[in-house]
């Protein structure tokens, strides 16, 4: 037996040989499949979900970050204001700022009093003239409520109003408070009084939550923003002009088509990117929330490539010759022949899926309008207004047919498809009226488009919008 014969013999014997399999192997495989990590591969659907999840995580992180940042900046500002107001020695303001007094639990009432006392004691360590001055200031405040302090504004208003509230109580002590000379007993009395004011403020106005009000939907959306000095809320209009290169993807699902057809279609079509251009109006519906409505054009490109076998090409060749006879006569001879070639032909075309769409979305912007850099998260729907498909595809007999269809007679039905949209925008302020922005986004077709050949196509795209935002009303009414 020579080598080749032996190789062939063994190959033929063993190539398709089927050996018995242990009966419990399937259970082991299933247990292992459920246990083992799936690696880093993701299929097309998982890509879409992963991108959507990424957007959500990013948006959530940004929301969390900016809320914390805003809260701390408000806290710092209010502390600064209070410090300025309390400079004359208004110890109740200090008490208000002390962390101990931020606790609103009734159980810490004694602690709160104690800490207030401590603070006032520390105040009493100041030079005598300062201490006197502070006490006299307080006493004047108490007897003659300062209108400025009484006016309910910003953080200090609570303290000021507390002075007003406290006045009747304090009047009981008036007999012992006839001059500016303060003795130790008076100091102690004032300290107690201040502590009481502070505690009362805390309980009455819930000052602990002044800096961090409870989160609710209206606050998150910025709908309960305070009106400005003119009494009106922020009411800005913008127009955003943008364009984006798109990375496109397509999922094809059967809607009656055979598996073979799906396979052939899948292998003959490959997405080749696209672009989006558009404009949208943006209106504030709160301090930070925007409603956006626009019109955009998007185009997705697809390379169709199909190899057709047994293509016959016949070429006719005509050869024309002039022969001169010995007698000097010229004769023209024409030889006609034909060459037939059999081969394959590759049909390539660039398909275009064009859509006119209406994006409707809500956006939440972080930061103030005057900030140079701002960030926003957007989410919404894109409604298909009209669509044109151009190019070629396979029919069920695997023949190449034209898609060219603007009307309903085409390969694809023109249903009113809708896409979900999510994005993160980064704005850079150029002037009071003009911003530029970059907006990475993701969109995915919710319903897809049905074809005549029993296929449902859904498109998705990820892109980067680059654009400019122009303020239309030109007013700056925000706080």
């Amino acid at each position, binding site marked *: *037996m020579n*080598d080749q014969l*032996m*190789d062939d*013999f*063994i*190959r033929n*014997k*063993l*190539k*398709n*040989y*089927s*050996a*018995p*399999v*242990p009966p419990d*192997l*399937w259970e*082991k*495989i*299933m247990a*292992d*499949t459920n246990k*083992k990590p*799936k*690696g880093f*591969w993701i*299929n097309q659907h998982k890509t879409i979900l992963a991108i959507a999840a990424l957007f959500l995580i990013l948006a959530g992180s940004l929301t969390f970050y900016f809320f914390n940042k805003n809260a701390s900046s408000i806290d710092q500002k209010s502390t600064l204001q209070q410090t300025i107001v309390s400079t004359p020695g208004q110890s109740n303001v200090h008490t208000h700022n002390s962390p101990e007094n931020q606790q609103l639990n009734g159980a810490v009432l004694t602690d709160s009093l104690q800490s207030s006392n401590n603070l006032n004691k520390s105040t009493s360590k100041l030079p005598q003239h300062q201490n006197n001055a502070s006490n006299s200031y307080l006493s004047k405040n108490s007897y003659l409520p300062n209108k400025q302090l009484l006016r309910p504004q910003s953080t200090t208003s609570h303290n000021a109003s507390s002075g007003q509230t406290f006045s009747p109580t304090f009047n009981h002590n008036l007999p012992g408070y006839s001059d500016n000379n303060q003795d130790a007993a008076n100091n102690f009395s004032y300290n107690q009084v201040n502590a009481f004011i502070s505690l009362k403020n805390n309980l009455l106005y819930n000052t602990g939550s002044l800096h961090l009000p409870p989160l609710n939907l209206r606050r998150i959306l910025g709908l309960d923003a305070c009106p400005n000095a003119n009494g009106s809320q922020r009411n800005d209009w913008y127009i955003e002009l943008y364009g984006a290169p798109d990375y496109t993807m397509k999922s094809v699902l059967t809607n009656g088509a055979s*598996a*073979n057809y*799906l*396979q052939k279609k*899948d*292998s003959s079509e490959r997405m080749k990117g696209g672009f989006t251009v558009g404009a949208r109006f943006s209106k504030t519906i709160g301090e930070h929330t925007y409603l956006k409505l626009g019109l955009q054009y998007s185009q997705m490109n697809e390379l169709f490539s199909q190899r057709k076998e047994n293509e016959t090409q016949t070429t006719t060749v005509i050869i024309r010759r002039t022969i001169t006879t010995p007698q000097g006569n010229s004769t023209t001879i024409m030889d006609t022949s034909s060459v037939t070639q059999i081969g394959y032909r590759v049909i390539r075309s660039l398909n275009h899926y064009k859509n006119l769409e209406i994006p409707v979305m809500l956006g939440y912007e972080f930061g103030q309008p005057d900030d140079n850099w701002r960030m926003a998260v957007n989410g919404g729907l894109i409604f298909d207004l009209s669509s044109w498909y151009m190019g070629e595809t396979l029919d069920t007999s695997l023949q190449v047919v034209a898609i060219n269809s603007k009307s309903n007679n085409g390969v694809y039905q023109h249903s009113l498809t809708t896409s979900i949209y999510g994005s993160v925008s980064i704005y850079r302020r150029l002037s009071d009226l003009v911003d530029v922005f970059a907006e990475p986004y993701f969109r995915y077709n919710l319903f897809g488009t049905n074809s005549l050949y029993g296929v449902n196509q859904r498109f998705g795209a990820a892109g980067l919008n680059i654009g400019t935002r122009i303020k239309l009303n030109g007013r700056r009414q925000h706080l």
Partner: protein
Amino acid sequence: MTEFELIKGCIKQQANCQRMLYEQYAGKLMAVCLRYANDAMEAEDILQDAFVRIFNYINQFKFEGSFEGWMRRITVNVALKYIQKKKLQFTEVSEHHDSAATIPAMAYSQLGEEVLLQLIQQLPTGYKIVFNLNVIEGYSHEEIAKMLNIKASTSRSQLVKARKILQEQIIQLQKIAV
């Protein structure tokens, strides 16, 4: 259910499709495993790992070429990894190496698949792998050299020696049978 639908179902992690796929191909892949493994237990482990990989990576199958071939390649790769874990060494074996199969004489009347499988299993590991890869799977010596990180000439020499051992054994078996 067609093969395409079966694959699509497996991509969607549908248990019934996975089960059908297993039922359809487990025997053939077990035979592949047995050719590379030293014993049935090892073959079972290889097959288990191979199916786990097939189910996990089936979405990477591009529907280009034979699906069975794709599964075979995965199985062979898993088997090679198993063997490489054991620090496979392509050592030269003496031409007079006594590797005669101890198979009952009744089996020699016809060289059936099981007998051939046993003969191949009893080859030295290096010979066995090269013989399997080249003769049955159809890999060239250059491809084998890349897969096993050896020289192509080593692969050729291993094959020659594997053939020689097998031929001797087959002749011996035929003599016994006669």
